[in-house]
């Protein structure tokens, strides 16, 4: 009984690592650009397809494919912000929501046209089936690597934002774009860089999502919902809080699934609403 509970909790924490990866980019774009990107989940899916095409088309290891995609994802994020999202930001609250909603529809239908509706999975090789024994528990290596990737990525982003000059620029523009422009910063350029970084986190999330679960052109909104709940649960602007939010969701789903399989997803949403009711600022708010 105790072993089953511990196992449920551990599995919840491990899936929470994947959820944190989904949420990191959204956390950054909400924290810096103050905008919710409704197409965030679809961006993850489209990059998963890109990774699939590169890995299968050129016979590359998936992590090598990811290394190739990272700079492309940065440029994609930068271009998206500079040439599309920036045109509508600051004009009206609804405008960025509508534009990204439109993007989500275009991506979903484009992927359906190009790849069909069949679920796909990224080729993980030996990593997919490897199991390690920790304190007598048999744990998949892939979920452990996913959690480790989330922790490393959060640590790196935290250092970038709070210990580097680029991070200081991003925080200055996020704080007060008007004042920042009067000390020589171009907010549009800085937002572009921030969105480029978001693009790189999306690529990492896409890789691990595709390795750990099936995906199809309609998977985006589900990813967005998980990312959104993780960000809000963790507290806006807090990267480590986002990890905590992901873990809370993962554990809630695990516990719900043990009670009744149909409760798995619902339990996550119920916990999200409960935390929101008691602590609307999230668990570890930074702003």
């Amino acid at each position, binding site marked *: 009984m105790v072993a089953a509970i511990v196992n449920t909790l551990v599995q919840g924490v491990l899936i929470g690592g994947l959820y944190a990866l989904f949420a990191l980019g959204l956390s950054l774009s909400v924290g810096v650009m103050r905008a919710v990107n409704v197409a965030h989940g679809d961006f993850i899916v489209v990059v998963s397809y890109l990774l699939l095409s590169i890995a299968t088309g050129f016979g590359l290891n998936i992590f090598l494919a990811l290394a190739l995609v990272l700079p492309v994802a940065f440029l994609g994020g930068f271009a998206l912000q500079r040439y599309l999202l920036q045109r509508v930001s600051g004009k009206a609250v609804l405008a960025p929501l509508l534009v990204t909603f439109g993007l989500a529809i275009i991506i979903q239908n484009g992927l359906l046209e190009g790849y069909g509706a069949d679920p796909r999975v990224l080729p993980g090789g030996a990593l997919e089936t490897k199991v390690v024994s920790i304190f007598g528990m048999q744990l998949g290596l892939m979920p452990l690597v996913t959690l480790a990737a989330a922790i490393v990525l959060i640590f790196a982003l935290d250092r970038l934002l709070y210990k580097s*000059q680029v991070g*200081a*620029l991003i*925080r*200055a523009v996020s*704080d*007060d774009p*008007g*004042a*920042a*422009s*009067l*000390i*020589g*910063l*171009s907010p549009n350029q800085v937002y572009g860089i921030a969105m480029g970084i978001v693009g790189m986190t999306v690529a990492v999330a896409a890789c691990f999502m595709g390795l750990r679960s099936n995906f199809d052109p309609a998977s985006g909104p589900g990813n967005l919902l998980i990312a959104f709940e993780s960000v809000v649960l963790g507290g806006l602007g807090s990267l480590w809080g986002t990890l905590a939010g992901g873990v809370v969701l993962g554990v809630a789903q695990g516990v719900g699934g043990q009670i009744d399989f149909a409760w798995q997803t619902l339990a996550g949403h119920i916990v999200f609403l409960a935390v929101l009711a008691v602590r609307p600022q999230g668990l570890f708010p*930074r*702003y």
Partner: protein
Amino acid sequence: MNLVEIRRLSKSFGGLSVINGLDLQLGENEILGVIGPNGAGKTTLFNLISGVHAPSEGSIFYRGVDIGRAQAWDRCRLGIGRTFQVPRPYARMSVYENVLVAAVHGGGLSSRAARKEAEQALDLTGLARRYAEPAGQLTLLDLKRLELCRALAIRPRLLLLDEIAGGLTDAESLALLDIVRQVHRRGAAIIWIEHVLHALRRLASRLVVLHGGGLLADGDPEAVLADPRVKAVYLGE
């Protein structure tokens, strides 16, 4: 050649005309005081010079180049620094980070040079002892110092001061005046909007009075303050 030459400058917001055909010049290394009743267009003038707003009509020449349509960050990189009437620190960043980002981007300096410039600006403004504190926790005097410090870090040729003595005690104003004096000695020309006249009188070599978006008076501070039109409009005498 004048450092700044403003010609027939106008700015309207919808049907409201705030600056009306203003002509104004500023010499190199001059300290120009600007006074006027509320709504005279003083802060709008700063917003036009620093690039927050684009002029509706007219030109702003800075070192012989019309910068009226240039972006705010480009004007800053040309050496135009400003402070705000209500301080606008990056509240969650440390005092040092606030100044460093200005030195790197406004000053166009390398990382090492920017750190040195930031440290010098912190020393000059007396903020060095508080460099690690979040800017949001500073007192009003220190926030005003930070505004000055951040503007200094871009190594300005032209510094726009917007009521830096407002809300301070006399002793605090004197402390800031001393900093402004030192900035001026380093070679910056200054345009200074201020309601605290005794502070302005100590430093300004010339005074202009704005009224209804135009120039009411321009000249020696004592002569301008003695002008009956200025007394009627601004001093209410």
